[in-house]
Structure formats: C-alpha cells, structure tokens
C-alpha cells in the first residue's frame, strides 16, 4: 500500500487510494489536518500536531513551526536543548501521519508519495526525500503540489477535453500550473511559482502593520511568547474576515491593551504588495503554455490561503471571471497524492489515466560567449533543459575549451532563468581534465537528466577519451549524505514520542494551558481549576473516568475559547 502525503508548511494530510477513489485518513483526534508543528514536552517526549501548535504560544522555545521553509538549508531549530534540522522535524510529522494511516488501515506503511511545491529546488527536493527516509518511508515519488491538485480535480473530469489552471497558494509557497486534459492524458503544460509567498506572509505583514499602527514596543518582537500569541490572534482575525466584514485585533501585554480594527479594505491595502506578487507566476505559466486566459475552461483553487476573499477577488480580476470552488482547497493536494499512489499501484480504476509533468525551471551551465577574435564574455548562462520541458528528459549539449592550451574544463551547473549565471542558483560543478589534440574535437558532451521526481543528474563525457564524470552535489550546504541520514534515523528512533492513543488528552491540556495564558481575572482562575481536575482524573488511569472527565473538560475549553474570542471583540 502506497500512501499520499501533503507535507505542508502549516498543515499536513495523509490519504490513500481506496475502492477507486482517494480518501483522507483522520489523525487520532479525528481531524484530517495535522498542524505541521513539533514541540518537546517538559519530560522530553515529543508532541506533534495540534498539541504542539497550542504549545507554540505557551512554550515557544521548545516548539517549532513553518520549518518547511528551511528544507534544504542548514538552519537548526533548538527544541528542549536538542538541535533539529528541518528534515528531522518534517520526519516527525511524517512519522505521525504514517502511524495514523497504519492505525486506520491495520497494516504497516512503508511507501509514500510526498508532495512538494513545484518550484522546490533540487536541494529542497532531496531534503524532502531524506525526511521520508528518516520517517522510515520509501519515497516512491515526489509529486508537484499543483500537479497533485490537478490530479484530484482532473480525476472527476477524465472523460473530457479541458484546459485549466491550478492556482495553489499554501501556507508558505505559491504555485501555478496550466494543464491540458485529453483522452485520459493529464498533461502539465507549464508550472511557475514563488517559494516565499503564502498565507504565513499575509500574517507577517499584518503583524508588522499592527506593531506600527498600535505603537507596540518593537522590543516585544524578541518576546517569543508574546509573538506566538500575536500570530494566533492575527490568524484568527484573518480567518474571521473570510466570513465577517470586520474583525478587531487585540492583545494585552504588561497591563496595556493594543488594538487595531481590521476590515477587508484595510486587509487589501496592507497586503497589496503580496497580492501583486501573485500575478507574475500566473503570467509566466500562461506564457509558457502558449495560452491566453480566454483559452482556460476553469481555474482551480488549492491551498488554504485561497480561502481569503481578497485572494479570490484578485484571481477573478486577473482572469476576468470567478474561479471554480468545487474542491476543498485544504484537502485537494493530499487527495491528488492519493490518486498518484493509485496510478503507481496500477489500480484498475485508473487504467485509462496517465499524467505527465514538467521541469518548472531551466537548468544549464555557465559559458563564455565568443565575441570575435580571441575575446570572450564570461559568466553567461546557457540552458541545457529549458523550463517547462516535459519530464523525464535527458539532453546533451557539446561545449569546448576557449583556448588550445587549456587542460581542464570546469562545468558550473545552475538553475534559473537569468541571462547571467551569477543571477541564478548554483547547484554544483564538475571539474573535467582534458588533453587537447589539434584538429580533433576537444570538447565535452554535457548530459542533463531530469527525472519524474524533479531530481537532476549531470554527466560530462570527454569526447576524446570517452571518460565520464558525474556531478557530485556534495559539500553543497544543506544536504545530508546517506551516512548522515542513517545516523540521524537511528537518533530519531530513540526519541520518546508521546503515545498516539493518549495524544487526545495531552492536546486538550495544551489547549487549556494556552487559554489559561490568554484569559485573565476570574475566568482564568476558573479554567485553572478545571485543568487541575482533569489532570487528577487522568491520574486514576481508568478509561471510563478519563473519558467522562475529558467530556466535561472539553465543554469547558469550548466555553472559554468562545469567551476569549468575545473578549477580543469587546
């Protein structure tokens, strides 16, 4: 059984292909969305998901979120005195999802399809695959997120001929893909994106504005606990604005109450720079697909941030019509991953469906341009694989030395679209020794192979000697070697994870603690008593008593959550 996993910036989901359709699997709390958060408890056990998200506010120094943004980098997160890489934190999320699926399906899960933003680089893709390995999962395929969304959408349209665009604005990344569906072939025509644009950026901008407008002391930005509860307030207000015309941002600190009223017009004004950035990837994808907006039959929204009315309105203005809202934007990527799992398992229901994807960016080498005579201009970028080429693909280009006395070639490999190599992302280089024979072709054949997972291999063959050299991207910061993965897998396996069957009560306690911090006065004391009672009930270790106490405690939590929310608006 292969599972499909949407490893998101904000939330993660897992789904399977079952009885001819994709199905989401709930976690132990009964939710499909597991927050991509990790926290270390006082006793050193690891909490994952909702409990960890609650603890972001109460214990910011032992909790982490939004680490997907640091995949493929060397950034370390220190939680409870231990350092974690983004891959390791992601692996903990994956492991929790895997256990949910194992519990639901009653069988061990060892293979997965994991989605990545289409615009993820080689290093970020390799880091995602490493995260899978660290979680004990063989990653059968890295699937581009908008392609996954398209699969989930297209599976209902498979009998039709249609062209559509997937607009995927997630928590941390923005992706656009243009697709062509015909004869059961789902062909990605073009993808484009922005790796640093998502719902989290809207929150950050609102926070900046809040600091400015309400004159919150800038020093408070260093206060982790204050910032985390600010993030939570802003998120709540942002979500509220999707339903109500206005919301009030409010936060208390050291006896002062800071507040800022927020309505749609204000939100639109504050986030205008982000909204403007939505345009260029859409333009690029359409351009590369040779399509105009009028040629599109539909616009499919994916990603939680597309719930925001201001984003929807922006989409409508860009395309001159309203987007399709058939699918739940939070779930569509995971569902698509499950469809891909079905394809991978050769499920009979998908016999007539096949999907092709593209390389979303150009890949090439640094060259010198001959200007005439013996003059050269250096540092130009020459693409070997042009962006939006259908993958898997393998292409060769021939290069030769600029001087007869040259004894070696250094092949610098880059990813990007800029004319000059230095403006693109360096992926690595190969050094190829050559010896030249006058009158012969002294060049080198450089072969780029880009597979369906979006992983690149570069080979250089010296034409004279037929010697082949392969690009080794090692030493590239932000990449784990196979040995390191093995070591870290062992280390991660020793970590104490909070038992899955007791996570529900632990999550309730974490939520209680967070509310306790938020409330004040009498309500706070009242909640404090409730927490103590619940803890005492759990100590009895009697399932019936625990269950009953949990029911009461949950009611109290709901009540106080509501109270704290009302409190905000007063």
């Amino acid at each position, binding site marked *: 059984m292969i599972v499909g996993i949407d490893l998101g910036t904000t939330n993660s989901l897992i789904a399977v292909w079952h009885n001819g359709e994709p199905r989401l699997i709930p976690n132990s709390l009964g939710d499909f969305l597991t927050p991509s958060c990790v926290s270390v408890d006082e006793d050193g056990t690891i909490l994952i998901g909702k409990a960890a998200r609650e603890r972001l506010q109460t214990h910011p120094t032992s909790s982490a979120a939004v680490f997907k943004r640091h995949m493929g980098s060397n950034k370390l997160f220190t939680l409870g005195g231990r350092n974690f890489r983004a891959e390791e934190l992601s692996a903990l999320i994956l492991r929790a999802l895997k256990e949910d699926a194992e519990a639901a399906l009653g069988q061990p899960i060892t293979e997965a399809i994991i989605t990545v933003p289409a615009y993820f680089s080689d290093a970020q893709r390799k880091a995602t695959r490493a995260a899978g390995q660290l979680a004990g999962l063989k990653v059968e395929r890295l699937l581009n997120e908008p392609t996954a969304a398209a699969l989930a959408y297209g599976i209902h349209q498979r009998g039709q001929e249609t062209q559509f665009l997937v607009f995927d604005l997630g928590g941390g990344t923005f992706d656009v893909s243009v697709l062509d569906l015909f004869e059961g072939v789902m062909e990605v025509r073009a993808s484009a994106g922005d790796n640093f644009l998502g719902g989290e950026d809207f929150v950050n901008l609102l926070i900046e504005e809040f600091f400015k407008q309400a004159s919150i002391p800038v020093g408070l930005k260093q206060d982790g606990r204050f910032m985390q509860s600010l993030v939570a307030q802003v998120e709540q207000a942002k979500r509220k604005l999707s339903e109500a015309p206005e919301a009030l941002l409010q936060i208390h600190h050291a006896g002062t109450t800071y507040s800022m009223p927020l309505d749609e017009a204000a939100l639109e004004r504050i986030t205008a720079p982000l909204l403007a950035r939505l345009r260029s990837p859409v333009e690029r994808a359409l351009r590369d697909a040779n399509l105009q907006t009028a040629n599109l039959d539909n616009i499919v929204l994916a990603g939680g941030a597309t719930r925001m009315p201001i984003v929807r309105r922006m989409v409508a*203005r860009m395309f001159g019509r309203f987007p399709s809202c058939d699918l739940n934007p939070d779930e569509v990527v995971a569902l698509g991953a499950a469809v891909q799992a079905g394809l991978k398992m050769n499920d009979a229901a998908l016999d007539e469906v096949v999907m092709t994807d593209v390389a979303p960016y150009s890949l090439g080498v640094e060259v*010198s341009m001959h200007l005439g005579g013996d003059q050269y201009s250096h540092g130009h970028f020459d693409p070997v694989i042009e962006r939006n080429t259908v993958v898997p693909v*393998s292409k060769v280009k021939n290069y030769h030395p600029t001087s007869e006395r040259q004894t070696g070639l250094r092949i610098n490999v880059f990813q990007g679209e800029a004319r000059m190599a230095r403006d693109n992302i360096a992926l690595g280089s190969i050094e190829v020794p050559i010896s030249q024979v006058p009158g012969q072709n002294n060049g080198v054949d450089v072969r780029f192979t880009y597979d369906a997972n979006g992983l690149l291999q570069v080979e250089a063959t010296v034409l004279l000697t037929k010697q082949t050299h392969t690009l080794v991207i090692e030493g590239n910061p932000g990449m784990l070697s196979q040995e390191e993965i093995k070591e870290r897998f062992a280390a991660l396996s020793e970590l104490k994870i909070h038992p899955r069957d007791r996570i529900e009560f632990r999550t309730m306690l974490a939520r209680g603690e967070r509310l306790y911090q938020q409330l004040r006065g009498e309500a706070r004391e009242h909640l404090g008593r409730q927490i103590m009672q619940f803890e005492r009930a759990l100590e009895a270790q009697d399932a019936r008593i625990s269950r009953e106490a949990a029911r009461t405690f949950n009611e109290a939590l709901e009540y106080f959550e509501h109270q704290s929310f009302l409190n905000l608006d007063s």
Partner: protein
Amino acid sequence: MRDTFPFLSRLGLGADAGATDIRRAYARELKKINQESDPDGFQELRQAYEVALQWLAHQEIALAESEPANTSTVADPEPMPAPVPPLESTDPYQLADQAFSLFRSSAQALVLNNESRHQSRWKAALQGCLDHENLLNLTARTVFEARIAHMLATGWKPGHETLFVVASEVLDWARDSRRIQQFGEAGAMIDRAIDQWKLYESMPDNAKVTIKQLIQAVRSTPYPEGVATRNNLLLFHQLTDRFYHWFSVILDRETLQNWHNAAQAEIQRNGTDPAVPLQYLETPAETGKSSSSGWSGWSGWQITFLILMLIKGCAALINSSDHGTSYTPPPAQLEQAIPGKTTAQQRLEELQSRIEPGMLAHKETPPSEAQLEAVQRQIFYVPDPAKVLGVLKVSFDVELDGSGQVINVKKVQASRDQAYDDAVARTLMHTNAFPPGTQRRFTVSYSYKTGGL
C-alpha cells in the same frame, strides 16, 4: 504507411492525420509506457508527438495561405461557451489602450518637464500604469507590455534610453528573456539590445567609460562628418556591430546612420588602425573567474570557461537524446517546420497585428541561391598552408533590416579555421547582395575545401 514520416509512423499514423488523431495516438502509446522505468522510450514518444504537432501546425499554415481568404469564416470554430460567467465584459485590448495612452501622456510630461533622465520618474510612471485597475486583467497586461516593447523597438525618442533600462527591470525582461521574446520582431530586437547592454555592463570600468563617452559624443553630434574625431569614428565603427540593437534603442537612428557613413568615409580615406580602439574593450578574462575561487587545487589550469557551441535548430530538437536519426524528415520540410509558425507564434502575430496593423503586412522572400552565391564569391580567404584543414564548413544566423542591409550575424557552427569564419562573417556584414524585402532572419552555411587533402 511506407511514405509517411517516421514521427507519424511511431504514432501509427499516416500523412492524413489531424490534430485529434495525433493526440489520440499519443495518448494510446503513452499508456503503454512506464515513464519512470523507461524514460528513453517516453522521451522518444514525446519527441515524435511534439514534431508531429509542429508538422501539423506548419501544414495548417500552408493550407491557410494557399486558400483564398473567404474560407476563414468556415474554418472559424464556434467559440466555446465559457463555463464560468465572465466577470466584466470589457475588452482587454481596450483596457490596455487606455492604460497605454495614460502612460504616453505621463511620458510626454516627463520629457516636457526635463525629467526624462531620471530612472525614478520613469519607474513611477510605468509602475503607476501597471498598478492601474485596467491592467489587473492578464491579457490587457500583456498587450500593454507589447506596446512598450514596440515603442522602444521602433526608434529612439527622448528619454527612451532611460525607459529601456527601467522597463527591462520593472517588466523583468532582463531576467527572463522569454518574456520579451514573446513580442515578435520588436521583442527579439529588444531582447538583443538587453543582451548587448548587459555585455556593456559586464565590461571593465575603463571600457565602460570609453563607450559612455562615445555615446555622449554621438548624442551631441548628429552630423559627425568633419566634426567627430578620428578616434571616435573608428571606435564607433568597432562598436556598432557589437552593440547594434542597443544603440538603436538608445540613440537616434538618423544620427546612427550619419555616424555609420562618416565612419565608413573615414576608413576609406585612411584605413583602419586597429590598435586604437580595441585595447579598451578587452574583457576581463581573469577577473571574470573570481566566482570560482573555491577551486584551489587546480591552480595550474588554464582559464576554464566554456564556449557555447552549435546544437541549434532541428538537429538538436530531434536528435538531442542520442536516438539516432530516425525522426529526421527531409530537409525541405525541416527548414519550415521548425522556424515556421507554431501556435504560439500565430497567437502572438495575431496579438501583434492588433497592436500595430500593417507591421506584418509586407511579404518577405527568402534569399535566393544566386544571392547567396554572390556572397560566396565575395569571401576573401587564403588558408594557412602550414595547416591541414580539409573541408571547412561554417554556419551563421543572419539578420537583416528592412532595406536588405545585414545588421547582425551570429555564428551557429564554427569551422576548424577561425580565419575562414571571420572572412565569411566580414563578407556577410558588408554585402549588398540582398534586396529590400528579403527575409529578415535566416541561417546560411558556406564551405571551403582547402588543398592538401
């Protein structure tokens, strides 16, 4: 199916295949292949499919050209009913028009107020229009951008030298050349101008100063004959080939023509003195390498940058994966199939024809055999008797202006003798073998059989 093309037989199709047949056949074959375990098989199929689509597009154009215009009403398909109701009924071309006239008036204001040298002012004017409500519509935006490109490509007006820099950045043309290339001829022209401008930017400071001074001299001396210094004329002569497009954007064309004539006259009078200008223009071979300083163990090596080689055109498209030559259609087909109109080009031409009616109206004819032979006869080349060279073959992409004058040549395949390549390039640059109305771009190959073999 004996006499059909290999790419069609790979799809199991005959020469009468239409678009639906090709798509259906591709879908059928694709389902038989496992993309991950057989990437080569997939790539081969994919190439057959892509070539088939290009072949079809070419067929359709040929057909449309051979038939009288009134059949177009028959060919017009019924427009698909939009599944989602359109939001606004406004025509995107109208939206773009309004925004563009807004831009034009702010451009005029800039020039009148003597502010056309300030990048920040141009940036504000351009950004102001881009942020305009009208240009939220993506199609309107593209049309607006096409107009800016066209404005820059059709001759210098005061302030264009600044607008060129600002537009390249604000519209991202400098970073993404495909974005500017979509605007047909104007786009190709601006694209080259940006390349040349970037080349200038990458030069060492002393060379930049020299070029900058020359540009100022050109600007201040519209009639250089008898006024400009010999050094400046020779320098202009050296630079004008390399920076042709860039100069055309940032300098007045009539002035450029005057300088060209004056430089030619000067050379005829006194001959060239290559020692004068070239020394300023050496590119920094060593300093350009600083980005690769991490490579300490190989210090004995020579400069290790690479030179871009041929692999262009059809051969690359079809054979780039080492699959042999099974998909090579006869050369005559190929010549037209690839540079011919793909649907993308059709779309853009349609877009362009709405932007600038008449721009595509005149018909261009490809250069004749006789014209190409005339050039061949003008090539002056004496092989070095000390070298054994065999047959030399060189290919160039040639670009003409409307009058038939060659404005640029780009080597796409080098022969083994640089001297021969240079001789051919020189001849092409100075020939007057092509009459006005000759096709503006084509590729030409010349060969030379040296003695001794």
